[in-house]
């Protein structure tokens, strides 16, 4: 796997979300990702970045364009925060489970919208979520 492009965006305030979404949008356009896939990626990114702001008071996102072979190109986003972490990840991945006042669709919804979803969390240390969306798929 080759990482073609790499950028780190800090998320500290709500307005940063708009900037971040625009950057991801630019990356998706750069690799000519289709509209439906792009919308799914942006929506998943929007859910994860909100979690980061609400539960960890911000963090950073690493945006990458990756290429596995000449056929598979995609975008990988790595969300890193130093928030309280998640006690029970399997519970957090269930539809409708929330510790806040939300619908509890953020994490499970984001997983359904992307091709590869990986979450690692350590209570008291932080959470890292990695999502990958292929250009076609």
């Amino acid at each position, binding site marked *: 796997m080759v990482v073609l492009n790499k950028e780190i965006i800090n998320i500290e305030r*709500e*307005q940063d*979300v*708009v900037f971040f*979404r*625009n950057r991801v*949008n630019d990356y998706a356009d750069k690799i000519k990702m289709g*509209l*439906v896939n*792009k*919308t*799914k990626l*942006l*929506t998943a990114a*929007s*859910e994860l970045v*909100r979690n980061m702001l609400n539960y960890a008071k911000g963090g950073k996102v690493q945006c990458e364009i990756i290429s596995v072979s000449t056929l598979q190109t995609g975008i990988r986003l790595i969300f890193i925060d130093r928030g309280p972490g998640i006690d029970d990840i399997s519970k957090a991945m269930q*539809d409708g489970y929330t510790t806040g006042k*939300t*619908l509890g*669709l*953020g994490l*499970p*919804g984001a997983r*359904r*919208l992307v091709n590869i979803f990986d979450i690692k969390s350590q209570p008291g240390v932080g959470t890292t979520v990695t999502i990958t969306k292929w250009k076609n798929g």
Partner: protein
Amino acid sequence: MDKIPILKMGEYLLVTIQIDLYDRLALNLENDLVNMISKYSSKGVLIDISAVNIVDSFMGRILGNIAQMSKILDAHTVVVGMQPAVAITLIELGLPMNGVHTALNVEKGMDLLQKKLLFDTEVITEEEEDGSTE
């Protein structure tokens, strides 16, 4: 600070969302709309989201909230112009858009609102007529 304008047209309120929404902005819109409905006794709210590229769980919840809040203030809400890609994403996300009426475009949305209003007034007059004959 950014603000989404709300236009009053007769008994209706029109909202066109043309900028990238962030959470605070969406919350302010919800608040402003409910206040405007109460101030002008509006009977219908039309929200045009044709320029909106993403509706995530938060934004979807706000739309649902607006529909339910306006309902208990005796106003109907119609969301119009959703992009096909947004509709696909909303369903995969698993968002229930309960109580939100939708139409393909502003024209059809206006028709829907007018029909709903007409239906409401007919029901009321029928009830009144029933009452007078007894």
